[in-house]
């Protein structure tokens, strides 16, 4: 494959070009209620060519080798167009030329597990999720994605890296009369099939929560002090703060860029945030990004102060900051964009019981149910929660959405737990779906949060 990629690159007339070929294998097994709705394995492949010429930069994705000359012509024409009209010529930060072949160690390679065994395991967890007369249906799926990537650049880099992601996840829906509730369930990771075994308790616990939601009261809208669990804290870290750490999000927005200056005090002094794709055995692990840059651990917020951000080669040069290997594509259909790898709030010192004592009255909000940001503002759903009175966890509440402003909320984190946990399944939709997006947090107390009930 490397020779084939060189044969394409050698036809490009530009100052710099790189090409990535990926073969993506996907195995899917899906159950909807008791019915099997999908089963199969398929492989697809394609190329992404990127061209930098006289400060103009452009990319083309194509799926057939026969189209490579058309792709070269399109990418070159687009780069010339960019060059003609750009006000800031693109320059790439320098990086090491790499020749490497990286296949991460797996705890049981899912490709060696038979389809029948995968089906039986998925059926077993689905049966647990269905095992209550108040459960209306389930949508449980096994999804295994492997990407075999080959990257070649005119600078001389030649990298082969394999990424594997497997999960059993989905939705459990309960119903009582006209009231419908649902809860998400997930097990997975990027370091092998073993993490999917022996997860019966997780599926049973989530099934019981789905049933309990039918008798929970809707949360009352307004402002409240809350404890958020690791999943909610992780989504906040990713959605509200993490995306602002991506240089491409802020680079053309003058006022946001002013707020996100290195050295700015953005949060409470007890909050530190790091992104580290090099952490092994985590969903977000990779060695090289899709520009061939080695991934680095990046401290982003240290004791409340902004100390770093995530870059591509282009933005690192534009910001005159270090390149750190965070430019990643969903697959062969896309040029890479700046993404988080494994982002988390560093653990503090408080135990969960200590956090409850400190909260006194408020809510304990658990498990993210989708989140979205727009500039400084965010809105996240939570799957369920509990009232907290005098430091004691009370009745369950449902229909929870929280909303706020990033900077105010970072300052309103008044306590950080000692129990960091990272997510096992991801799905960040910044233009492309990153199923390896990993985030986490310890339990946190956030004061004065806007809660929008129904």
């Amino acid at each position, binding site marked *: 494959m490397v020779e084939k990629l060189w044969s394409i690159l050698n036809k490009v007339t530009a100052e710099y070009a790189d090409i990535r070929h990926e073969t993506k294998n996907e195995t899917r097994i899906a159950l909807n209620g008791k019915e099997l709705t999908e089963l*199969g394995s398929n492989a697809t492949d394609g190329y992404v060519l990127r061209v930098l010429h006289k400060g103009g930069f452009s990319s083309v994705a194509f799926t057939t080798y026969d189209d490579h000359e058309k792709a070269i012509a399109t990418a070159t024409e687009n780069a010339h167009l960019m060059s003609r009209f750009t006000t800031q010529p693109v320059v790439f930060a320098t990086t090491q030329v790499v020749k490497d072949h990286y296949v991460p160690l797996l705890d049981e390679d899912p490709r060696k597990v038979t*389809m029948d065994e995968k089906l039986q395991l998925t059926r077993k967890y689905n049966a647990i999720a269905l095992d209550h007369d108040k459960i209306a249906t389930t949508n449980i799926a096994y999804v295994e994605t492997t990407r075999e990537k080959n990257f070649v650049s005119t600078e001389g880099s030649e990298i082969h890296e394999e990424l594997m992601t497997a999960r059993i996840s989905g939705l459990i829906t309960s119903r009582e009369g006209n009231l419908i509730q649902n809860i998400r369930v997930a097990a997975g990771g990027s370091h092998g099939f073993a993490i999917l075994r022996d997860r019966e308790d997780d599926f049973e616990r989530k099934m019981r929560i789905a049933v309990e939601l039918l008798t929970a009261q809707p949360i009352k*809208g307004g402002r409240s002090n809350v404890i958020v669990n690791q999943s909610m804290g992780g989504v906040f870290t990713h959605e509200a703060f993490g995306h602002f750490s991506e240089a491409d999000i802020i680079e053309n927005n003058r006022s946001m860029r002013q707020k996100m200056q290195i050295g700015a005090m953005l949060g409470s002094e007890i909050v530190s945030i790091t992104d580290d794709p090099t952490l092994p055995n985590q969903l977000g692990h990779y060695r090289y990004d899709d520009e061939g840059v080695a991934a680095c651990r990046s401290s982003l917020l240290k004791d409340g102060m902004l100390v770093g951000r995530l870059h591509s080669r282009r933005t690192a040069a534009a910001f005159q900051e270090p390149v750190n290997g965070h430019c990643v594509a969903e697959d062969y259909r896309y040029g890479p964009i700046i993404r988080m790898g494994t982002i988390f709030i560093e653990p503090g010192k408080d135990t969960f019981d200590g956090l409850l004592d400190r909260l006194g009255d408020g809510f304990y909000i658990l498990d993210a149910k989708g989140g979205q940001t727009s500039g*400084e503002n965010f809105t996240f*759903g939570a799957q369920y929660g509990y009232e907290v009175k005098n430091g004691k966890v009370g009745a369950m509440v449902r229909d929870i959405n929280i909303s706020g402003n990033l900077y105010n909320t970072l300052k309103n984190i008044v306590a950080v737990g000692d129990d960091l946990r990272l997510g096992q399944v991801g799905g960040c939709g910044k233009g492309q779906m990153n199923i390896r997006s990993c985030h986490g947090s310890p339990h946190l107390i956030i004061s004065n949060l806007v809660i929008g009930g129904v």
Partner: protein
Amino acid sequence: MENLMAFAKKESDQVELYSLEQTANRIEFEAAKLNDIQSTIESGVTMRLIKDHKLGFAYTRNLQDGESLVRNALASLKGGVEARFDFPASVNPPGIRAYDERIKEARNTVIVDECRRIYSRLEGKTKGQIDVTALTGANRIGIMNSAGADLSAMNSYYSITVNILYPGTATGIHRTLVSKAFQSVDDGFLEGIVELYNSGAKELNVRGGKMPAVFMPESMYALIWRLQSATSGESLYHKQSPLAGRLGETIFEEKLTIVNDPLDDTKPGARIFDDEGVTCTKFPIIDRGVLKNFYYDLCYASKMGTAPTGHGFKTSRWSGETISMRPSCALEHLTIEPGDTEFWQLVRSVERGIIVCGTLGAHSGNIPNGDFSIGLSPGLFVEKGAIVGRIKDAMIAGNIYEVLKRVRGIENRVHPAYTGYYPAVLFDDISVATEN
């Protein structure tokens, strides 16, 4: 394709081949700067087999390796996914014109010039950051099956979105123009965005409570999403629809008529057959407040013992690879019929209320139940019939089966928006939570 069909037929009772070829371009300007141009050239094939009422499914990008495609489909067949439906025979669907040859004129140089012209027209009219995104492309979809269908359709599209951002945010006022070929935006289009943007320049702390709300077309999807879920044959089959058994009932205010019209070829994306080869029709969902229909693909129509309605599409709410998707029940061509009130007249009728110009978190919350709880991104505040600024940090919440009964007025035109073509709609008594 014929050889592939013949080869697969030997191994199964029924065969379907779906093919897709497409090219696409995306041009982004941010803050008057040409930021990115991306292009895509792609093709692929999906195969479905039915044998002994079991379904096999496979896809590939490599059209030369048909043998692997059939092998994967046969392997999939062994899983035992039930298929109690037949691929449809060929029909003579009505002719539409979904492809406009002039799309070839929409070269990236032409679009870059148009974006620059837009900046020159807006210069000095607003202090906000202006972003412009243009998409253009064409595709050819083919469906061939063992019942004799051999369908082909070409589509072309062009869209341009102008977004003006409020300072310090990524939140702004935006509007999109869509067409089957390149089309310049007119001054009225741009002035409409600027007028709305400038009226919300001042950031306000507002007391929450129940108040009227104008949902802009760009926000209506947050409500329609819940209705799409409830009227899907899939939701009905899996007992997730709160509308089960309510066909013919008045469920919303009688001003509301919601139609799925794939045959309207004045808009890009018109279709005469769905992604399973079933003929598309103009299809009412809500007619003057009355629930008229549930919509089905082949699979869920067979499960529910009814006829398919031409709503089997390879689509997903999130990004996905078309050839890798199975057809599922989907409303791809929704329109809310316009009312009789001009937009600013709707605004003038509000004594104290909000305008929902964008939403945050529409995908979270209990969608099957019809609940929504969303951030305003942005929300404008109206006092005594005039917009006085934009609201700082606010959420709105409700349930569509209550809110859509409280329609006070509907704008007299529709605009392209996410998931369909919608007018602005004024609702009474929307619950608004703010900092105060």
